């Protein structure tokens, strides 16, 4: 096997040196009855040529990856500067592990320190951790953290939080004695409704809101923060489209207590849903309640600045069942990718990409709203996603658009909301050219006009 340095001959010699006769002797401590007496029924070894041909053939059966696309809903198609993949392909980064030994891990440590800083700057918060698995699990961890801080047990989720994020929260809290309450969104605006106020009480640990929300609507986070704080609760803000942070008021400035985000938009390929990276930030005063790893500044005896993993007493390897989270391996390399992305785009790039998204979305939504039979059901301002109501079933319409026009037109909302058969969610980013947007609009118009087949 070409990944194993020692040849069979060398291994035989090593066995001999340690006084064994055969490889089987290495496993003498495994009771014989537990030993597998046959070969595993997994494939024969493939050469690189064969293996790549096999994966290429499988990848060819993913036509979704080759279309102009308006799919968003928690995973976004953004431009990734070429440098990102180069940097994360440096052996020194991708074949290192968690920087337990700072003297020979300063590369990873300084990167994480920069990542933490960037997350704080973008979210408007004081402290950020070294990453969570993704946005959805980060939200679940935020719920648990809110409970720890407030010692209250009810959490209210605003209606338009990503349905999969809510499912994950539900799973996480099911045995934690936390009641997860879900208030409906306003059907006209698409934002959090007045029902929230009714649900809020002195058992409420936190309000969870996503902004821009699942329908692309920008929530009034400032008002929600005020409401939450008035009730002695925390405001947890989730962001699935992190590019919005380049343009929208930061959750921190709006008064959030914990901010989580999916960092995929920051230079990470779609890759069928992962690996992505969860961003997690909070206020200074809650720093010791934060889950996951933290990197901090430290000095050696000569006064040289370096970085170390710190506040480890929050973590499972020290605190075991009393830890703030069970997380150990996180998303280091993806956090690196996000860091490279953010530094390459820089202040001006992050602003421009966000403005382009907003402008292109405005253009697309205006054109779609004017289409005969189509409407845009929600009135709230939006960033780069919006719901569209078609005159026909959206699922069928979109699948014809894919088949006949080679466009992924968006997400049929019936996937999560069966009561919305004609609605679909359109996402427009800087990667969608005007020609693509026009093709989407014209394609939908043509298909809707000649009705269901």
């Amino acid at each position: 096997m070409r990944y194993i340095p020692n040849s069979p001959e060398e291994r035989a010699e090593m066995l001999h040196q340690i006084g064994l006769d055969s490889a089987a002797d290495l496993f003498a401590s495994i009771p014989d009855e537990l030993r597998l007496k046959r070969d595993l029924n997994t494939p024969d070894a493939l050469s690189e040529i064969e293996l790549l041909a096999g994966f290429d053939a499988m990848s060819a059966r993913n036509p979704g990856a080759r279309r102009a696309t308006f799919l968003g809903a928690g995973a976004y198609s953004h431009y990734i500067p070429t440098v990102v993949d180069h940097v994360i392909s440096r052996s020194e980064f991708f074949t290192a592990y968690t920087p337990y030994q700072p003297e020979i891990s300063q590369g990873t440590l300084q990167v994480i320190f920069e990542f933490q800083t960037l997350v704080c700057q973008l979210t408007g918060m004081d402290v950020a951790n070294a990453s969570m698995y993704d946005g959805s699990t980060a939200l679940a961890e935020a719920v648990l953290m809110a409970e720890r801080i407030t010692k209250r047990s009810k959490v209210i989720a605003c209606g338009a939080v990503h349905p999969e994020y809510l499912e994950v929260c539900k799973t996480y809290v099911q045995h934690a004695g936390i009641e997860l309450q879900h208030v409906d969104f306003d059907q006209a605006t698409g934002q959090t409704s007045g029902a929230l106020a009714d649900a809020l009480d002195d058992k409420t640990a936190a309000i969870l809101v996503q902004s821009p929300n699942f329908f692309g609507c920008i929530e009034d986070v400032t008002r929600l923060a005020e409401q939450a704080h008035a009730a002695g609760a925390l405001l947890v803000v989730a962001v699935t489209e992190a590019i919005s942070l380049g343009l929208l008021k930061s959750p921190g400035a709006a008064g959030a207590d914990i901010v989580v985000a999916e960092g995929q938009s920051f230079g990470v390929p779609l890759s069928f849903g992962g690996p992505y990276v969860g961003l997690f930030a909070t206020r200074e005063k809650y720093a010791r309640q934060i889950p996951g790893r933290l990197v901090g500044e430290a000095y050696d005896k000569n006064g040289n600045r370096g970085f170390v993993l710190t506040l480890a007493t929050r973590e499972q390897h020290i605190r075991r069942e009393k830890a703030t989270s069970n997380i150990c391996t996180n998303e280091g390399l993806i956090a690196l990718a996000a860091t490279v992305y953010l530094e390459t785009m820089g202040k001006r790039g992050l602003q421009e990409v966000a403005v382009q998204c907003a402008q292109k979305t405005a253009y697309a939504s205006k054109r779609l709203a004017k289409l005969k039979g189509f409407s845009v059901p929600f009135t709230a301002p939006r960033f780069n996603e919006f719901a569209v109501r078609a005159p026909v079933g959206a699922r069928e319409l979109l699948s014809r658009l894919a088949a006949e026009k080679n466009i992924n037109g968006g997400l049929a909302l019936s996937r999560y909301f069966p009561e919305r058969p004609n609605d679909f969610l359109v996402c427009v980013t800087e990667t969608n050219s005007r020609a693509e947007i026009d093709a989407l609009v014209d394609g939908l118009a043509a298909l809707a006009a000649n009705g269901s087949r």
Partner: protein
Amino acid sequence: MTSAMNPKITKVTSHISHNEALIFERSQPGRIGYKLPPLDVDESPLDQIIPLEFRRDDDLEGVPEVSEVDVIRHFTRMSTWNYSIDLGMYPLGSCTMKYNSRLNEKVARIPGFAALHPLSEERDAQGALQVIYELQNHLAEITGLAGVSLQPAAGAHGEMTGVMIIRAFIDARDGAGASAKRRTMLIPDSAHGTNPASAHLSGFSVKTIRSTAEGFTDLDHLRELCAHGDVAGLMLTNPNTLGLFEKNIKEICQIVHEAGGLVYMDGANMNALVGIARPGDMGVDVIHLNLHKTFSTPHGGGGPGCGPCCCTKELEPFLPVPRIVKNGQEYKLDFNHPQSIGRVKAFFGNYGMMLRALSYIQTHGHDGIREATEAAVLNSRYIAHGLASDYDKPFAAPSMHEVVFTDKRQSRKGVHTLDIAKRLMDYGFHPMTIYFPLIVQGAMLIEPTESVGHQELDQFIEAMKAIAREALEDPELVLNAPHSTRIGRLDEAAAARRPVLRWKPKQAATAG
């Protein structure tokens, strides 16, 4: 003074290493590192799109402004400060730092996978679903456990999933709420910290099982703890974190099962077993694997991982949804599992790691994965043999893929595990895992993996022996190590006392 002049140090020499400030310190107003195509749609006034009150007004203060060249030099320089598998042996016990193949990286970047949206329709993603399906099957075969979910993002996430499955199963078996009474999760004192943390997250209370002096689960203690009727399950690592195969695993499983509990196996150490023995054949009910250990997906400086959860047919209904199934020739997402614990992550998990793991399995073949296991255990045993005369080896049983030593002999001269670890850096090695498992005082857990040739093993053994001599003859040398790294030991206590967790612009700098 340079290590080059120390004839014992053969692996490294000292050389210039580039300094690099924080990017925020490199930033200069007006520098640009990106370019977008010009906006090609009719522009609307921004206020019409998004009212001012919803927009940021801080001009993204502090976000750096640098050129692409700055970015490349910044990260290239920083990268050179890291030790990495590609530079040499990385014997971090419990972490299985094996070779991360370039082929796997290439596979993960094939555009037909990398550009695929997770909410694509099934028919638009048949190839991607096939990858998941095939990997599930291979992992089922490797573990001997039929039900597989690839959704968990790492080992701890897989633990949480598995433990929740146990809980859901008990409720289903014994009636809703039954698990509220069976609240005890048994965990050996040698277990990894994630085990109790995951059990806690799932609402269990943890009871600790003692290990015997020989390093195995104490069966008597286990029996005793199982006698109260409140045991939901046992979380056992096998080979355990001391690198020893729990030879009584069958009996252990029996005891727990008889007490009405289930057995969770932490599969982090599967690199000792793949192709040799299968947890499913031992009586284990549910397990997680670390694809980022056993199946070589890169550790990436701390992730991403992938922590598949594998379980018996009986537990399969409780696995997270969606499950990926094959229906005739078609791959499908199956949400219809009412007993499922639910979703543990948006979408399908860390898909990119699944591509790599499948590539690993296909590259090795059934004989190659067994060969890897044999080579990994052999390397560990070779080290165990090589160091036995210089270091205290607390357990006599033969080690599997990793071996634990202690600082007992060296500590008589005041040299402790931490010092030995730091001194190893001067010899050019990444240290082993230290002070874990917690039950071994001054533990040094060494896992060479199969990815090291015998010359480098010999260099490692020589280095360790040299340090043992230094501890005797010149303990100060060891106590003040490392001597040859770009930075010395950092004051971690001070860092934790007044944590500085982010860069901030210097107030003075703007004024001056």
